[in-house]
């Protein structure tokens, strides 16, 4: 525990720069730092690293439709402000009329009602946008899967397992692969299927998460290859928490030997 008079440890300063201290520890450290030039200097260096980490994430182009959507939104949101009119002193001093309480109440209720309706509509629009994006992704998945299948020389390996079946389609050069699966078990809300690349030696590596689509089968699942497929001995699929696991936590439901 740091008091205001003693220097915090470098551990605490580095954790502070990453904003990972507990709220209860903050006060004493901040009080000390505010009056200690040495600690301010060390902290500034740690903070420079933290700021650098913001910029160090690899840039990724966002989906192209996002730009158009933002352009639409800012055009639609733009409000025309009425010209500013200076009120005279007499106007400023004039008391707010206190009559028509019923009318004011009705107007207030109408405003609240309008706000609720617009909130509900906003929610509905957002849901529709999400559904549209999900469909778009599905189409893209299908297109990628079809492109893979139609490549001359693409290999197809059947997969059978305790729960589910399907095929693994591999590009002729082994650089890309996709799973076409069906009869998979139903998942609970907090579960997902996780694909694993299993090397001959060493730990399995995650190659993507998917949840499948209700009532649909044979949706291609693109396998995120980190090395050419020939580097692996098998591919497996297991049921994991929705956000994925660093290593399989359940027995694979499907395995295909390569």
């Amino acid at each position, binding site marked *: 525990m740091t008091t205001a008079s003693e220097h915090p440890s470098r551990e605490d300063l580095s954790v502070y*720069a*990453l904003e990972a201290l507990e709220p209860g520890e903050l006060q004493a450290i901040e009080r000390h730092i505010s009056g200690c030039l040495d600690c301010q200097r060390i902290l500034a*260096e740690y903070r420079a690293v933290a700021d*650098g980490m913001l*910029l160090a994430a690899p840039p990724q182009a*966002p989906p192209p439709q996002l*730009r158009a959507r*933002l352009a639409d*939104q800012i055009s639609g949101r733009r409000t025309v402000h009425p010209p500013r009119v200076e009120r005279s002193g007499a106007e400023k001093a004039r008391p707010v009329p206190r009559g028509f309480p019923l009318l004011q109440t009705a107007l207030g209720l109408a405003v609240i009602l309008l706000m609720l309706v617009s909130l509900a509509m906003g929610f509905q629009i957002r849901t529709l946008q999400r559904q549209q*994006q999900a469909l778009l992704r599905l189409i893209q998945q299908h297109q990628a899967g079809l492109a893979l299948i139609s490549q001359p020389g693409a290999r197809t390996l059947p997969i059978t397992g305790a729960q589910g079946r399907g095929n693994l389609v591999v590009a002729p050069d082994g650089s890309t692969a996709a799973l076409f699966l069906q009869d998979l078990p139903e998942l609970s809300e907090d579960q997902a299927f996780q694909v694993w690349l299993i090397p001959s030696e060493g730990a399995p590596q995650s190659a993507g998460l998917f949840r499948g689509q209700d009532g649909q089968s044979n949706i291609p699942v693109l396998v995120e290859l980190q090395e050419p497929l020939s580097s692996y001995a098998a591919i497996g699929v297991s049921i994991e928490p929705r956000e994925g696991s660093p290593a399989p936590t359940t027995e694979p439901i499907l395995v295909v030997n390569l």
Partner: protein
Amino acid sequence: MVSDEELVNRTAKRDEEAFLTLYDQYSARVYGLALRMVRDIQMAEEITQDVFLKLWTRSRSYLAIRGAFAPWLLTITRNTALDRLRLENRRLPLADEHDPEETWEFIANEEMPQDEARWRSLYFAVRDLPKEQRLAIELAYYQGMSHSEIAAHLGWPVGTVKTRIRMGMDQLRQQWLDGQTEEAKSKNAPPDVLQ
């Protein structure tokens, strides 16, 4: 070329063209950071959208005198992503050894602006840290966990978490300072004498 400050000022005055120019220049950074943090394409897209809508409505709060535009925008991105992670109470898979989305790998080294080169080298420096140090730092910074949460998440004693963060940060700090020194050296180098 129009400066970021000028573009932000014009955005504050509802200049859509200036706003979209900023979007073109920085959306890949915003989306890249969001994706690194939440590791979900759809959520990263929504975060990017939120960040740029915040830029549209709050660009007046940017003060160039307090720092460059990119860190300001990316701080908003980080905070927005952390809010989303907390809202959804998500615990993400830890960073892969080989991230398939490492576009830094494909950015040419030649003619790279000095700052860009430093950020890129910092990215690789983070990636090259011993795994335990990298995990602790990434969980703190990219997923907003406190040291106690990291300790509980990874099953380490709190003291170990702090030590690993300090060791990793010291290494990154040293590399960052070395980069600064190199930059200063190149800026202060005497000009070539014309023959």
